């Protein structure tokens, strides 16, 4: 049986539900040496800022039980260099380009969006989990008022397909999701990393130079599933799900929870051909459980 693997993320057509998560796949160059990138339906590239960024100094990673905490600090070549160098590279492959964008201010978000509006990207992913000084160090994405403002303004700045990436570090994610939908986002991606910290008891210092960072990997999978399930119940726009996916079975679990497509992040580090295996796993599941298409799987809980 030939399954219909296609996914329509409300304007972004994917040939299959498997994508890779921002910050875990660079701009695809490195993994291209280990896997045929044509397998991916999309790549969300490393978080972009207006200007190039050096990222955080010192130790950027701590390993935790079935997870890792990172504080890369948005090291990236800047949006212009991305357009010049990376888009042409990625265009060699049959995949959609999702530009993950990050600003210090709302204006900066809008400016990047305007620049990318003129560039050859298929979608813009608004990462609102960056810490925001005005919001007391909490991320943009945790304050409903700020979310409303940033999404509505970015929406006006571009006519591209717009994904908004939600932070799990909030009391009520449904409220945030509703605002994101109302302000005209096409799709929600979730979850970004969970705030976490590790301390080295021998040096008596936080393992990360920055203190805390973002927890990813299988440890956060149950948190992601719960939040995706909640948001699926709340909004009509599709969800791109992620958070600890390590297998085709995990990908299916996310889709049953309500994700229309999924992204593999930390799992790539463990298994550089995981996207391929996950695609095979999902296809096998469709076969075993007699689903005609991936779309029938989404949110299909009994």
């Amino acid at each position: 049986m030939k399954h219909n693997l296609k996914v329509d993320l409300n304007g972004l057509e994917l040939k299959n539900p498997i994508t890779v998560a921002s910050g875990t796949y660079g701009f695809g160059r490195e993994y291209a040496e280990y896997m045929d990138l044509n397998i991916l339906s999309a790549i969300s590239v490393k978080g972009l800022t207006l200007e190039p960024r050096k990222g955080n100094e010192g130790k950027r990673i701590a390993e935790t039980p079935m997870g890792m905490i990172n504080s890369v600090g948005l090291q990236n070549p800047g949006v212009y260099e991305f357009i010049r160098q990376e888009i042409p590279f990625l265009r060699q492959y049959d995949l959609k380009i999702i530009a993950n964008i990050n600003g210090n201010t709302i204006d900066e978000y809008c400016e990047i969006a305007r620049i990318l509006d003129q560039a050859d990207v298929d979608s813009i992913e608004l990462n609102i989990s960056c810490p925001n000084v005005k919001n007391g160090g909490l991320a943009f994405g945790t304050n409903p008022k700020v979310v409303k403002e940033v999404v509505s303004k970015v929406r006006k700045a571009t006519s591209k397909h717009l994904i908004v990436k939600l932070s799990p570090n909030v009391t009520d994610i449904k409220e945030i999701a509703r605002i994101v939908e109302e302000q005209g986002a096409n799709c929600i991606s979730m979850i970004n990393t969970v705030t976490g910290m590790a301390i080295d008891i021998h040096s008596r210092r936080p393992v990360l130079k920055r203190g805390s960072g973002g927890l990813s990997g299988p440890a956060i999978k149950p948190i992601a599933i719960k939040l995706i399930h909640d948001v699926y119940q709340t909004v009509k726009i599709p969800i791109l799900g992620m958070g600890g996916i390590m297998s085709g079975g995990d990908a299916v679990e996310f889709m049953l929870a309500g994700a229309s497509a999924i992204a593999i992040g930390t799992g790539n580090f463990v298994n550089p051909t995981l996207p391929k295996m996950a695609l095979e796993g999902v296809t096998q599941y469709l076969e075993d459980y007699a689903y005609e298409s991936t779309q029938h799987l989404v949110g299909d809980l009994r």
Partner: protein
Amino acid sequence: MKFSGRVKIIETIQLQDDIFKITVERPVEVETIIPGQFFNILATTSGLPLLRRPISVSQITDETLEFTIKVLGKGTEWLAHKAVGSYLEIMGPLGNGFEIDGNLKKVLLLGGGIGVAPIKGLLEYLSQNDVECDSVIGFRDLPIFSEEFIRNSMHNEIISEKNSAYKQGYVTGYFEQLVKESSYDAIFACGPEAMLRSITKVADKFGLKLQLLMEEKMACGIGACLVCTCKVKDGDFDYKHVRKCKEGPMFYSNEVIFDEA
């Protein structure tokens, strides 16, 4: 495509309480390996620890790869006790290894602790290619690979902090002495960050440029995730972050900006 797959363990030899030498079959797909390069190795069947462990090759032959592993935590513990005949999931070779100029005549090799493992690989490679090697290797207590170092070096020093059967002291002191006496076409070093920092100070004093093999906790191991940063000079006044796994693990000592101790 680069190699990522299973390799069979042919032999595991315990060199010390906590140091194991593991020989695996060399996959045919792997063409060239340069001393100083490493493989990123899955160190679990259960899934924990989550991330792969980067391990340098300590010997390269046509049929085999050798890894020398010091047990520090769960990952290296698992690797050390993995049964002979079973398989390891490895990917690589990764990173930029040592730069080995075809015209090298006389070189100096410095190793500290488990850092002697990749240095041993380099030494064997160089001496096969008739380069004259001096070497200084230092340990907390007992040495490993002393025979290999003695056999393949023109001049060799084995230093121990605690064990009085060996010369006492630190690699840095002997290094300073040697560079005063001789001149080398290249100097290679691997060891704890404190050692690399202090030999770099000496090197700077003598205007020497060492090749340092540097460690860092890694995730992807191939340059995609940006967690394994090395701070290096960018022009005269600025710095930039490069990836230890991709631009490194070999860095020239005059480029690196060390973290304060």
